């Protein structure tokens, strides 16, 4: 009674794979925590990172979470590909009950705990810097959002060793996900972890829309914002609009499972298709939430490394907002085959085809940006170029799928799987790596190693094609997704080819890891001294690397698009910086443990709900409420950074810039512009 459904049986002593995996992870975690404590890093970690409300720190933490969970999701992918490679007329090495958990976990982790945190991390880091302001609208909420997302990730990973994960796919369709057919704790782990993380994401959405609409540097009207901020606005508007749908729908499923409601059950008049309908009303905007920030990253990267302003700024903005709107009009294309009839299918099919148009506008604008520019093939630019080619292919298969009669043939086949991996990997993942490589020097003060970065790109690019082109083929040959075993001989060569592809992607992963290790070891030689390693065009490149806590000593006065480019041009022409500003003391939000402690209580509450430990649920909720009141009661919300500290930091930045000006800056500038023909 005191432990609900929890007992020692929950630990998978009879399943070697999760047991060993969980054991290894647990030991590694223990070792890391022990090292931190023994070496005395805990106070630093607590004060500078865990309780930080600084958007730059939170952005980095989100990115780290995303990369770690990407690794976990990738391990699931390796297991799936290897299982299928071995399972031609054979059982493979993963029994169906286990394989089902693997593909459910793969999708859940990749979407919610890898892709979302990576994109949100980039937005967190870059948006306030690009807007020329000091932080987001609600810094403490920002911290809370991150820690709630981490709680969700933690719960999903705990399911590996205590209990089981869901077997009901990454979107848990009833009646499989109802109590009758999934009586274990797996679906509950999934549901509570997503409900908790979903609250965090919704708070992020509110935070960023408020920031972008209400907090910008003086002079920065809407049409002077960088395109990354526009795509962040669109993505966060979608978050506000779509995530409540996820919360409500999963909430209805929870009511069915916990309180015997009949929303989606077989008995009592429930309607299973309503789950499918509502969950995809969230699910489609979700993929645009993922890809729009990636589009923004590419806009920044392509403009910077072509040495030209982005082509067609206004049409980019219009296309972004059009995608934002239309993404809410297409969700039925995920269940064309479920019998809605020609009228309904036709309307949603046409809307889906239409959404390709603004996306195409963006692709053309990127190409026209590159045309006539002097392209530097740095790692971020390679990711952008790889994206441009690969995403177009994925988009075209999407338009193929948007035609209902065609979709009837390939719905839920590996063709579909290849399509969405095509667009997500080329879009979101390449965008994440481009953004990370692009903004890494800004965040840490040194660049990532170019050689390993390029190797990582080429192996990822090749690995993607070797893995997923065979899946397109085998999908057209009729292979359904999520098969634990198969016996059609015609499929075998393709499945094996995909198995080879995953090995290539493993090499890519190794290159990424090496990139980080080597960069950290060689950081002095890769040091970003000025703060502008790429000859950037937007405001964040005017700060030091890393920027001070307050970002800007004085908020910049924005006169046009690409304000930093203007500032640089004028500085080079006049061979001096603008006059030193009148430094004033700056109010910054105080750090707060609220986010971390709230997440702690949510972890306890979530775990208790999963295992039906009702007294612990009450305790957890009470704890969360107490934290809320305690935080609301604090008297001092802000800390003051004194004017001389601001002056000291900013003067150091100015000295470095003046040195850079003195050293051949003008010659470099003229040389760079002679080629493009742009007026210097």
């Amino acid at each position, binding site marked *: 009674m005191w432990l609900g459904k929890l007992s020692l049986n929950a630990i998978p002593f009879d399943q070697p794979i999760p047991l060993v995996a969980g054991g290894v992870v647990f030991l590694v975690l223990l070792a890391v925590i022990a090292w931190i404590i023994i070496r005395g890093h805990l106070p630093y970690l607590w004060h500078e990172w865990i309780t930080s409300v600084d958007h730059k720190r939170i952005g980095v933490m989100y990115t780290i979470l995303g990369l770690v969970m990407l690794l976990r999701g990738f391990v699931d992918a390796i297991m799936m590909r290897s299982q299928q490679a071995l399972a031609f007329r054979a059982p493979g090495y993963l029994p169906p009950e286990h394989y089902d958990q693997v593909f459910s976990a793969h999708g859940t982790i990749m979407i919610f705990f890898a892709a979302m945190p990576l994109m949100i991390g980039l937005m967190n880091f870059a948006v306030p810097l690009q807007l020329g*302001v000091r932080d987001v*609208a*609600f810094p403490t909420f920002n911290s809370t959002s991150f820690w709630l997302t981490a709680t969700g990730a933690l719960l999903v990973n705990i399911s590996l060793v205590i209990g089981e994960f869901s077997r009901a796919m990454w979107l848990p369709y009833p009646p499989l996900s109802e109590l009758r057919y999934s009586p274990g704790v797996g679906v509950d782990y999934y549901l509570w972890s997503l409900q908790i993380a979903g609250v965090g994401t*919704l708070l992020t*959405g*509110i*935070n960023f*829309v*408020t920031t972008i*609409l*209400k*907090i*910008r*540097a*003086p*002079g*920065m*009207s809407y049409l002077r914002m960088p395109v990354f901020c526009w795509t962040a606005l669109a993505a966060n508007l979608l978050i*506000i*609009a779509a*995530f*409540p*749908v996820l*919360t*409500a*729908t999963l909430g*209805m499923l929870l*009511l*069915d499972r916990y*309180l*015997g*409601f*009949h*929303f989606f*059950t077989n*008995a*009592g*008049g*429930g*309607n299973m298709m*309503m789950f499918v309908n*509502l969950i995809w009303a969230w699910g489609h905007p979700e993929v645009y939430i993922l890809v729009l920030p990636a589009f923004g990253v590419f806009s920044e990267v392509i403009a910077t490394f072509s040495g030209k302003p982005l082509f067609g700024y206004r049409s980019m903005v219009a296309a972004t907002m059009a995608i934002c709107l239309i993404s809410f009009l297409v969700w039925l294309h995920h269940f064309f085959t479920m019998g809605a009839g020609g009228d309904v299918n036709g309307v949603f099919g046409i809307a889906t085809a239409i959404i390709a148009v603004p996306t195409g506008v963006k692709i053309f604008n990127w190409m026209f940006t590159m045309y006539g520019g002097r392209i530097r093939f740095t790692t971020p630019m390679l990711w952008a170029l790889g994206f441009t080619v690969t995403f177009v292919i994925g988009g075209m298969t999407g338009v193929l799928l948007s035609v209902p009669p065609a979709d009837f043939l390939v719905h839920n086949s590996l063709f579909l799987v290849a399509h969405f991996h095509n667009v997500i990997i080329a879009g979101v993942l390449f965008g994440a790596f481009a953004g990370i490589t692009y903004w890494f020097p800004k965040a840490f003060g040194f660049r990532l190693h170019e050689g390993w970065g390029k190797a990582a790109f080429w192996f990822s690019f090749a690995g993607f094609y070797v893995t997923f082109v065979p899946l397109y083929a085998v999908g057209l040959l009729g292979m359904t997704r999520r098969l634990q075993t198969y016996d059609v001989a015609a499929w075998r060569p393709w499945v094996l080819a995909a198995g080879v592809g995953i090995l290539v992607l493993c090499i890519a992963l190794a290159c990424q890891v090496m990139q980080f290790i080597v960069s950290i070891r060689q950081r002095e030689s890769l040091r970003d001294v000025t703060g502008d390693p790429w000859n950037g065009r937007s405001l964040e490149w005017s700060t030091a690397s890393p920027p001070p806590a307050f970002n800007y000593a004085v*908020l910049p*006065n*924005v006169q046009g698009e690409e304000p930093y480019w203007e500032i640089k041009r004028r500085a080079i022409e006049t061979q001096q910086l603008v006059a030193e500003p009148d430094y004033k003391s700056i109010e910054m939000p105080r750090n707060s443990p609220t986010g971390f402690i709230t997440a702690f209580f949510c972890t306890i509450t979530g775990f208790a709900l999963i295992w039906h430990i009702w007294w612990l649920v009450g305790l957890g909720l009470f704890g969360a*409420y107490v934290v809320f*009141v305690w935080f*609301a*009661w604090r008297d001092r*919300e802000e800390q003051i950074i004194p004017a001389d500290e601001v002056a000291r930091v900013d003067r150091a930045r100015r000295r470095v810039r003046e040195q850079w000006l003195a050293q051949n800056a003008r010659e470099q500038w003229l040389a760079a512009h002679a080629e493009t023909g742009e007026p210097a």
Partner: protein
Amino acid sequence: MSATEVLRSAHPPDIDPYRVGHGGGHDYATGHGEGGPASKRVIVGYGFWLFLLSDIVLFSCLFAAHAVLQTATAGGPTGPQLFDPRSVALETACLLTSSFTCGLSAVAAGARNQLWTQVFLLVTGVLGLSFLLLEAHDFAAMMARGASPQVSAFWSSFFAVVGCHGSHVTVGLLWLGTMMAQVFFKGFRPSIMRRLVCFNLFWHMLDIIWVALFTIVYLIGEGR
């Protein structure tokens, strides 16, 4: 001169704020156009407004589910058989009046009057509690007559949408109590005022959702 002053000095007086026929103008208001970051109270108010809109989307899913499951009574009791229109009318009166008294507490807070602010907040709370008690009584009565959420999808969706509103009212009352304590101990400092505005928005929004609720669930359900 601040940036805003520089920009504003070039800006003619505001007889034509929308610049009708002139292709739009520059807007030097903070937090809106080119005037720089908005003030804290605007930021907090707007963020909370966005949160309320997201809450409305959440309710709309529950409404959609209820609309779809209107006829899924699985052979059990139907809504009109068991709804008590007098009770619904009474609940509506309680909630509407509580919205009014909440507004009065906002006026009192604007005038920095501790006594009247607390009085009207208390009355709001009492009316809100009455609403909840009436609703709980209704639920108990319906369940006693065989209409529990476990009986059919119709009743599941009914209890979910009305219950979701009720739990929002409950959380609102908890928040109200906390606000009364904060106003008492900390007075009318800016952060407290911002939170009071958020609370007002929240409480009024609950009444707006109740209007939709009683219309769709009770009245239209009754009329079928």
